């Protein structure tokens, strides 16, 4: 007898967001138990990586590594190696040591504030992955100056998604979606009868409108947007992505979306590309593989935005499909500039001005 298809969906609060797991299988009890394993692991990772909890392993490392070498748990060490690699390969656009900058701007337990230039200069002295020394043989971490802090805020949720997918796979589930709230998700396989998992990318000006739809299969997607966290002071709006080279919030960027085989990489790179902008990202993609980047850029006219899509070598194999519809073709004459409303059912960037500069 052929087993019936069972769909399981659960949500779980962790890391300041809501993780969601959808999984298909044939046994509801089994899927529920797999879900328990996934969320237990996410909670464990939060307990290990949180800088909001003094007892977390990362907090202990931050308090100790300036005075002596600290040994890290293998998986965390691996993540820190990966984070430092991303810091270096993006020229510091993603910076695992940028925590003090976030604090200076009041994005850590604060309400937002504008630090003075001299304060920013002070803080920048304590930022830079070059000050983090990782001894792979000993699995130890050492800071070469006081005041340095590792902050996994721009990579940890993606990492947790990957670990969750590992568990789901280990238990034999082949169709699942793991999402960490606003930022990162991984689509494993496809829902029964579907080509992939349908993901609506939110319009940068409206959380209820889709700017694009993409179908994912064995692919992750991560977003950095100016709408995620920000504060207003006077007439200025300050978004939470800080450029570690200037110490100031990035301007002229609405969102950077990265598609990659790993959610951890997609998470780190979405922050990096947001900081780097289109041209520097193009340079990055020229020397890396299996990545796709999508930008929503401000337009000079009101609440409109421009799209730019960039691809690296191998990007056609990462499992992301943009649907083509007649409507999209019709509207594609507008050169990729659109209002949110008209973008809802279109993915016209695919033939737009910036499109498809495969590198």
């Amino acid at each position, binding site marked *: 007898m052929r087993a*019936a*298809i*069972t*769909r*399981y*969906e*659960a*949500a*779980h*609060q962790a890391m300041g*967001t*809501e993780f*969601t797991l*959808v999984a*298909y299988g044939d046994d*509801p009890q089994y*899927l*529920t138990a797999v*879900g328990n394993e996934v969320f237990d692991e996410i909670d464990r990772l939060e307990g290990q990586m949180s800088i909001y909890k003094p007892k977390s392993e990362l907090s202990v490392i931050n308090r100790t590594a300036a005075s002596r070498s600290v040994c890290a748990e293998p998986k965390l060490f691996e993540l820190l190696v990966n984070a430092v690699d991303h810091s270096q390969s993006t020229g510091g656009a993603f910076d695992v040591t940028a925590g003090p900058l976030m604090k200076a701007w009041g994005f850590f337990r604060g*309400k*937002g504030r504008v630090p003075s230039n001299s304060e920013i200069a002070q803080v920048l002295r304590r930022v830079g992955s070059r000050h983090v020394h990782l001894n792979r043989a000993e699995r130890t971490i050492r800071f070469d100056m006081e005041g340095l802090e590792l902050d996994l805020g721009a990579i940890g949720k993606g990492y947790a998604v990957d670990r969750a997918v590992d568990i789901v796979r280990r238990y034999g589930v082949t169709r699942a*979606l793991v*999402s960490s*709230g*606003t*930022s990162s*998700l991984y689509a494993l396989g496809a*829902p*029964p*009868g*579907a080509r992939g*998992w*349908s*993901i*609506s*990318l*939110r319009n940068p000006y409206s*959380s*209820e409108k*889709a700017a694009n739809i993409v179908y994912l299969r064995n692919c992750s*997607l991560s*977003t950095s*947007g100016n*709408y*995620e*966290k*920000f*504060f*207003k002071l006077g007439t200025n709006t300050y978004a939470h992505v800080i450029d570690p080279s200037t110490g100031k919030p990035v301007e002229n960027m609405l*969102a950077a*979306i990265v598609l990659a085989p790993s959610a951890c990489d997609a998470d780190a790179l979405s922050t990096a590309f947001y900081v780097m902008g289109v041209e520097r990202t193009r340079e990055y993609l020229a020397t890396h593989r299996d990545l796709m980047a999508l930008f929503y850029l401000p337009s000079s006219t009101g609440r409109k935005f421009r799209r730019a899509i960039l691809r690296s070598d191998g990007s056609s194999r990462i499992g992301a499909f943009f649907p083509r519809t007649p409507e999209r073709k019709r509207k594609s004459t507008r050169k990729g500039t659109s209002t949110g409303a008209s973008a809802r059912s279109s993915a016209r960037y695919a033939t737009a001005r910036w499109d498809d500069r495969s590198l």
Partner: protein
Amino acid sequence: MKDKVNDEVTRRNFLRSAASAAALAALPGVAAIAENPGPNDAVRYGFIGTGTQGCTLLRFLTTIPAGRCIATCDIYPPNLKKGVETIGSKPDTYEDYRQLLDRKDIDAVLIATPLYLHARMTIDGLEAGKHVFIEKSMFFKEEEAEQIRKVSAAHPKQVLQVGLHRRSSVLYQTAMEMVGKGALGRVLLVQSRVTTHSSWRRPVADAKYERLINWRMYREYSGGLMAEMGSHFIDIANWAFEGEPVSVIGTGGLDYWKDGREVHDNIQSIFDYGGGGRHYFHCMLFNGHHSNGVMIMGDQGTLDITDDRGIYFREPVAKISSGPAKENWWAGATVSKAAAQKGVLIFPEKEAKDSGFVDRESLYARRWLASMGIYQPEEPYDPYWGELVNFFASIRENKAPVVPLEIGTADAMAVIKANRAIDTGQKTSWTKKSA
């Protein structure tokens, strides 16, 4: 066994229909009278017992033109004087409530006397042809339930309303609407508490008035904390579970305020409603950290009400379904869904400032609750005011009051049984005949 189940169901249905009929009757009446006070058909009432609670009600009564206070009564002269000053309508005053009841020009009486007098005065009031508003708990002794019921049945045209004022609270009405609409899923536990660091003692200038003023301290007159505090939340649990408990266990002690009082200064009790539903109530007078409130907990959500503030939490529950679903997920836009699980103020003390991410998202979540018809922005009137307006509206429009006999009886009976459980250390059950 079968009979017991049937009886249970019948009893619950009865309470449910009584409550919903009352709730339906309550609100339009409130609006109609508040907006169109008819000067000629004001209810002429006497007020019996103008102590602390009596004067609390009198202060609200001064703003309700649907009723006119023409007489007050108290056996303690300073309270009698205080009542007259509070209502300000120059009522005639009495020390003997029976003389007040003898007046033919009085339509209704409101009674806020010590508990042990409730049944006698309620019965006398009904038999004198008056509509009766009786403060909670409705009665003191188990046998008084039947006595009141008989007299009330013999006077069907007279309103009998019990002063369980949370039934007139829009906050609690909203909470119960959420329970009824399934926002909490299957409700299995009500946790409630009244906590305060207070001797619960009123000052007595002349020692001979000690038992009169501090009647709450003495078992001859008082059901202690269970009657004075617990009765409110017993009624909330009855409301949430749409019925009465089947049994109660409890404990308690006089462990802190050993000042000659006879009632406990801390009590803990668990009411079993059958079918897995339980209500845990505790009250203490040596620590006020947790204030007053109730948590209504279902398998899909929690309502956490503390004082005048209610917060709704969605329980993260896995959804299991069969067959493929239309999978349409969002990137960069799911934060608002997370906000619902963080806790949504169902009665914000003030509107969220549009200052940042969390405020905006919780505003979105509240709009979402409002769109489901289960969100009210704020308490539009004080529940004391509401219950008093409802009393006059029930009289003038010949409608069932918001807290009719059945609700008050179930509440008072649970107080008595819980006190018995605490005093005997034995589980106390409801029998078919008792309710």
